């Protein structure tokens, strides 16, 4: 289990056993650690705490805050950073920030941009005008039952294809969290439902050899764990299975990542240990 944390420690900051790998912003740390320990019954592991997720505004309005100051959840997954695309419908300048109402056709939400009065003119941020289409990166917040997005970056949209791509991306990510990744044995079935156009290189590619045989893995299984599972399935081996370092070497994935993947797969009862804790074989039944 200790191997699991090496990758993070190497990154220059220590982790806690609560599963909180730091907040997106300093103040979020406590909230994040609470979310990690309280909202994941059964000790479900949460890897890669910080995410940037493309969303529709309706998803932000529908997002659930498990308790005040927690990170909101969409499709059962915590949001840290989000990005959205929409049209500015109103602009209201205030002393410390400018508040924009952004409409993407699925809903309307307020986006706040902090005013940086000290910045020299050449570094002044782009300030959206009414009617502009913009791409916003930020964090969903809730105060007094009013939601807004605290923006980090707002870019004007000049190529309008960005709107289509963003909405399709948001759909693909939504389906990823609700139905699991595409690919493998699963892929063919998904395609026959007419979702072929959502084949996304990012998800498809993580699933390794296309057409690999095997049962459908639960949606919560991480891409690396899927890769390890498919490798175990598709690689010729004796009944002792494969050693972690062998898998790590052949897939070119660091050993600690393979250990993490193994923990996931072992936890799900998809693989079992053979000679020792570090040698695994697919559990077939």
């Amino acid at each position, binding site marked *: 289990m200790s191997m699991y944390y090496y990758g993070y420690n190497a990154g220059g900051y220590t982790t806690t056993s609560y599963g909180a790998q730091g907040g997106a912003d300093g103040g979020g740390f406590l909230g994040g650690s609470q979310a990690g320990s309280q909202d994941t019954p059964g000790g479900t592991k949460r890897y890669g705490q910080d995410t940037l997720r493309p*969303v*529709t505004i*309706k*998803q932000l*309005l529908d997002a659930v805050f498990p308790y005040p100051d927690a990170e909101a959840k969409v499709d059962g997954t915590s949001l840290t950073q989000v990005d959205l695309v929409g*049209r500015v419908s109103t602009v209201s300048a205030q002393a410390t920030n400018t508040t924009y109402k952004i*409409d993407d*056709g*699925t*809903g*309307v*939400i*307020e986006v706040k941009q902090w005013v940086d009065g000290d910045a020299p003119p050449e570094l002044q941020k782009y300030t959206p005008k009414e*009617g502009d*289409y913009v791409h916003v990166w930020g964090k969903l917040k809730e105060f007094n*039952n*009013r*939601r807004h997005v605290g923006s980090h970056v707002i870019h004007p949209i000049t*190529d*309008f*294809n960005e*709107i*289509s*791509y963003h*909405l*399709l991306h*948001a*759909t693909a990510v*939504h*389906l990823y969290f609700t139905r699991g990744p595409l690919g493998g044995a699963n892929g063919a079935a998904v395609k026959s439902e*007419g*979702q072929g*156009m*959502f084949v996304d290189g990012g998800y498809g590619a993580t699933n390794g050899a296309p057409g690999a045989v095997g049962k459908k893995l639960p949606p919560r299984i991480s891409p690396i764990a899927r890769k390890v599972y498919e490798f175990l399935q598709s690689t010729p081996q004796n009944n002792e299975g494969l050693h972690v370092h062998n898998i790590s070497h052949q897939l070119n994935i660091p050993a600690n990542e393979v250990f993490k993947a193994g923990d996931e797969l072992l936890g799900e009862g998809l693989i079992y240990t053979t000679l020792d804790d570090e040698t695994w074989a697919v559990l077939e039944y």
Partner: protein
Amino acid sequence: MAEQISTPRITSQYLDAFTGKTVIITGKVTQTRGDTALIDSEGVVTVLLNRDSHLKPGNAVEIVGKVNQDLTVKVLMATDMGTNLDYAAVNAVVDATHRYKEIFYTE
């Protein structure tokens, strides 16, 4: 709680399901004559222009408008989207929004 108003994205095939509603139609301007214009959005849509809308034939346009009983669309806002718009992507979005309503529209 923020107000929740959604404006569905549709193509010409969906018009009769959205009469009386405000929708978004993105397509190519094929013809303008006086205060009406024809938009190609997987089929022809007749739009009734307002004074502010300046449609350029051959360009892509995003229309926010209201669907009348006769399936014409009264333009509330028109945004020129240039000549470089990927219509396949636009139509894929419409398809996705109706297939996976849960993240796009409240009914």
